[in-house]
């Protein structure tokens, strides 16, 4: 009998190991990238909120300080780690930006725990690759929420702090519902609290949160801005449409829906928040399998069929929504927001050069702007 039990235990143990190993490797996989010459200092988010120190939620904060003093802008990506265009855009800024005036602060992996999580129920692939001039560059595909390994248990209902609005239980691990956070709350509230503290202490003028959204969701292909950011968002939207030929309308940040970066950052600090949404067919529900190809080219026959029935909120044809278009939109809109802010507030101007815009990214591809980490590398 013990022989049978031992064999069963071995089989179960081996199955468990074989299933767990790829997930363990994914959780601990580090993306290599090359911080550009403009990076002057690297901090940790826990420097501003000690509540996340030593946890998987802590993340790197890159400071790109110009020679001339000016304003400060914060770029955040991977708030939702299954929306990769923002992450790639933030790396393009990190590797290429030349800061002429002011300071650019970049947090490429804002929800670091979510970037190491996955969504097996949707059959998410664990990785994707971007072709560069020197070979393929590999990235993790994360999830919308932080890993339950890092924050657990979930409540039955998430009661937002401080507004006490009732939100879905899963949003307690969603760093775009836990703003403005608190120093002793659940881990993701501590992440957003640390970011709020950073914005208040560093006197950040502008915060840009990169996202992606379903083509069937009305708040897509847009800049979400509260009242105080609306003027700059509108000017940026109109300028990219006129000068670069792509649509990116402005959506007002609803005051009655709490916990979102574009609402709480503005309400709890002097910073002007903007949330950029690029269309992301990979997130839509009525698609084929969630493959790397769908993530990268955004082509799906079911969405195409729905588009013909006018069920989508963005133009959609056989070309899909390729990654370079999404990353290009993020780069151009972010640069335009900084330019409009600098025009309006010259004493706090932020001048950034050497970052490609929409047309360049569409023409050359995203990978063209990544440098070879084997020459001069740093793990994220």
């Amino acid at each position: 009998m013990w022989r049978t039990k031992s064999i069963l235990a071995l089989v179960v143990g081996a199955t468990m190991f074989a299933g767990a190993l790829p997930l363990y490797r994914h959780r601990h996989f580090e993306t290599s990238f090359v911080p550009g010459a403009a990076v002057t200092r690297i901090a940790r988010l826990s420097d501003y909120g000690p509540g996340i120190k030593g946890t998987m939620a802590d993340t790197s904060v890159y400071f790109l300080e110009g020679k001339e003093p000016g304003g400060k802008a914060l770029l955040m990506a991977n708030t939702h780690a299954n929306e990769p265009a923002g992450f790639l855009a933030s790396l393009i800024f990190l590797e290429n930006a030349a800061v002429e005036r002011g300071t650019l602060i970049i947090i490429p992996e804002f929800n670091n725990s979510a970037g190491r999580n996955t969504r097996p129920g949707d059959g998410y692939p664990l990785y994707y690759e971007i072709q560069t001039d020197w070979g393929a560059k590999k990235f993790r595909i994360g999830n919308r929420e932080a890993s339950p390994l890092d924050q657990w248990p979930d409540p039955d209902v998430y009661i937002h702090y401080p507004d006490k609005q009732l939100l879905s239980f899963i949003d307690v691990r969603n760093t775009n519902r836990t703003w403005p956070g608190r120093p002793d709350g659940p881990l993701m509230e501590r992440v957003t609290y640390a970011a709020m503290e950073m914005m208040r202490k560093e006197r950040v003028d502008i915060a840009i949160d990169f996202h992606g959204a379903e083509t069937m969701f009305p708040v897509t292909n847009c800049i979400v801005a509260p009242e105080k950011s609306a003027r700059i968002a509108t000017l940026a939207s109109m300028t990219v449409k006129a000068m670069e030929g792509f649509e990116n309308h402005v959506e007002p940040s609803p005051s009655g829906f709490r916990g979102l970066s574009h609402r709480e950052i503005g309400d709890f600090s002097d910073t002007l928040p903007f949330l950029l949404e690029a269309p992301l067919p990979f997130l839509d529900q009525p698609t084929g399998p969630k493959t790397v190809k769908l993530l990268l080219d955004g082509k799906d026959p079911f969405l195409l069929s729905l588009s013909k029935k006018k069920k989508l909120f963005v133009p959609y044809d056989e070309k899909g929504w390729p990654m370079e278009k999404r990353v290009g939109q993020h780069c151009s809109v972010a640069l335009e927001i900084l330019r409009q802010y600098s025009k309006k507030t010259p004493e706090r101007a932020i001048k950034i050069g050497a970052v490609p815009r929409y047309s360049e990214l569409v023409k050359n591809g995203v990978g063209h702007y990544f440098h070879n980490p084997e020459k001069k590398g740093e793990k994220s």
Partner: protein
Amino acid sequence: MSAIMIAYYVLCACLAGLVGWNFVREKKNQDDMLLYLVVLIPLLLRLLRVK
């Protein structure tokens, strides 16, 4: 560690002990043995804090 997490670990340990003991005591039914082992997996992972 918060009180709820302590309670959770105690609960996990109790359940793991119970399931493990049932596995040891089971003499005949191989399906039940397998089920005990499968149920034991998440409890052990949490107790060992495997991440």
